[in-house]
């Protein structure tokens, strides 16, 4: 493993598989235990540095670190010196001086974790940077797919929605490709980046044509405000053409699953009855997020499980 986890490309196939296997071992070790805690990272300090509101990701990392017995410091942009205008570099030097072993960073600017990695000695884990990447989301998604379908090699995955602005999509395309899955991106052309042709993924504008041919459909959050910048004419038209409702879900193969990284816009990209259906892995993804992040912190800070 590299020292930092900044993007999906930091993981080769062996590394990624090791993370997933470690997450599975952790799940096994903790299942049925009353005290869901391992002593692995006792005495180590993990800083959650969150420049963007993200309750679910922050809590997931916090829980992951605490279950490994690490000391956890939550450093959020609100109510800290950040709001008084301290630069990212000064914050980094401060965390460095406090002896952080790992910094988990969420930032609205693409590349901020890369910058941070140049200024601190500890490991940097990207918890989502701008419209760039969110590698632990991709890991938990891969872990969820593997648990449900038993494999990743050759699994056909459709990623549907606002690919242009999605760090989840970027990380998933990279990681799923590394792990041997076949990805198809589905979106209106306005929500696909110029240059998407060089990604290791197929591209389609037609959700109905893709659904019968996939094992996984991953819906991305689409902000209704995008229509104000003419990415699509209206929320209703978007929903009609690219939303996943019960009728469309019926076109999926029998054992196909429906994923969503959350938070959902019920009624926009996903209908409520789809989100709550048996195919949906949405709640599972949240639970798997904790074990996957435990695996990442463990491997970055604790060494290999052998």
């Amino acid at each position, binding site marked *: 493993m590299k020292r930092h986890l900044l993007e999906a490309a930091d993981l080769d196939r062996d590394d990624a598989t090791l993370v997933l296997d470690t997450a599975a071992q952790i799940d096994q070790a903790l299942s049925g235990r009353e005290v869901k805690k391992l002593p692995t990272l006792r005495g180590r300090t993990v800083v959650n540095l969150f420049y963007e509101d993200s309750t679910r990701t922050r809590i997931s990392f916090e829980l992951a670190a605490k279950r490994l017995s690490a000391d956890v410091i939550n450093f959020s942009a609100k109510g800290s010196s950040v709001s008084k205008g301290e630069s990212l*570099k000064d914050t980094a030097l401060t965390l460095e001086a406090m002896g952080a072993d790992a910094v988990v960073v969420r*930032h609205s600017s*693409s590349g*901020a974790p890369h910058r941070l990695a140049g200024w601190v000695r500890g490991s940097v884990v990207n918890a989502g940077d*701008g419209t760039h990447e969110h590698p632990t989301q991709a890991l938990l998604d891969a872990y969820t797919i593997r648990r449900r379908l038993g494999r990743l090699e050759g699994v056909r995955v459709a990623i549907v929605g606002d690919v242009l602005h999605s760090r989840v999509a970027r990380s998933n395309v990279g990681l799923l490709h590394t792990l041997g899955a076949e990805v198809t991106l589905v979106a209106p052309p306005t929500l696909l980046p110029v*240059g998407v042709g060089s990604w290791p993924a197929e591209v389609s504008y037609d959700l109905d044509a893709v659904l019968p041919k996939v094992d996984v459909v991953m819906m991305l959050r689409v902000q209704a405000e995008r229509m104000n910048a003419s990415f699509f004419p209206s929320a209703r038209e978007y929903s009609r053409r690219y939303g996943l409702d019960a009728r469309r879900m019926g076109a999926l193969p029998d054992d196909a699953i429906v994923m969503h990284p959350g938070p959902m816009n019920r009624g926009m990209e996903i209908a409520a009855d789809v989100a709550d259906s048996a195919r949906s892995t949405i709640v599972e993804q949240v639970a798997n997020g904790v074990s996957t992040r435990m695996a990442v912190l463990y491997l970055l800070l604790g060494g290999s499980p052998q």
Partner: protein
Amino acid sequence: MTHYLIKGARPLGGDAVDVLVADGRIAAIGDQLSATGAEVVDAAGLIALPGLVDLHTHLREPGREDAETVETGSRAAALGGFTAVHAMANTDPVADTAGVVEQVWRLGQEAGLVDVVPVGAVTIGLKGERLAELGAMADSAARVRVFSDDGHCVADPALMRRALEYVKAFDGVVAQHAEEPRLTVGAQMHEGERSARLGLTGWPAAAEEAIIARDVLLAEHVGARLHVCHVSTAGSVEILRWAKSRGVQVTAEVTPHHLLLTDACAESYDPVFKVNPPLRTDADVEALRAGLADGTIDAVGTDHAPHAVEDKESEWAQARPGMLGLEQALAVVIETMVEPGRLDWAGVADRMSVRPAAIGRLDGHGRPLAPGEPANLVLVDPAARAAVDPAALASRSRNSPYAGREVPGRIVATFLRGTATVLDGKATR
């Protein structure tokens, strides 16, 4: 005034000769010249060029003296072989009145290292709404001839048309920062495969090309001069070539960094490589070199843009765009144009001195190296190579994209009207 006898220099790369500089002029050129009392400059192996002229420099004074001053920028310019620089108008306050341009001009005179030629803003406060008092700036002591809202595009087509027309009255030129603002909202880097992957909002080539296409048509329609700043795309070069073939009075510049660097630099997320217009692709770099070689692009303009450390040591999106250029401009041109055989030394003189001086209507610059001409000249050692050390630069800022890079061409001496501003590679003041 000290007289200089320059021994064995090669004017425009020609045969070695001696050049006698006296009373601000080139007094004589010939073999084995001698002059009693003259300071001898050993120029064996050095190329002599007319003093370089930059159409595009940000000196930051008034307003951001922590990043650069007229004096520090002038010193950087002299060390880069320049004898005249056009100081862009996006200062604080903006150079949109006769008062501000005269202030900048006087500061340049006091520094005395290069001729600092102020550029006047096209619109009040660079806001793109109303014309600034262009005539007053033209008539001022600063004798402004180049007008630009650089940093901002004069996006309103009617306003651009009027600006182009109006400056004809005093032989002025509008230097356009070609960027359709509606196509570059939040843009961070060249829009393409890399921006898609890096998650940085793209700056499409079409945003530059659309404005250039519009403006050459406007310039043709009203019979005015147009200059295009920092051309960065292959498509722009094509449009310029087409416009020139129609006889449109359009000129254009390319920056050293767009001749050398590509959007691959953004992979590091190090904002020292963030610039506007952004670094483009290999194909664009090739088209820019070809355009400069065949004269479609008239000039090299540095777009020297000093920034304080805190404005660059940040996240990419938070950083200000721009990079230093004055001290390495000639080096980059040697590396990208001379060494590959795409431009000879006469060509370098043409693109870095003669044509930019003509565009800016500067009388005493860009002149031939001949007896009687003003002694604005630079001596460069083309064989010397050295790594760029940002800490050693004369600029007050350190945001050089060439840090650690080995580049050719050492500026040995620069003369401004017969006064040495640089000798032995060091500024004389």
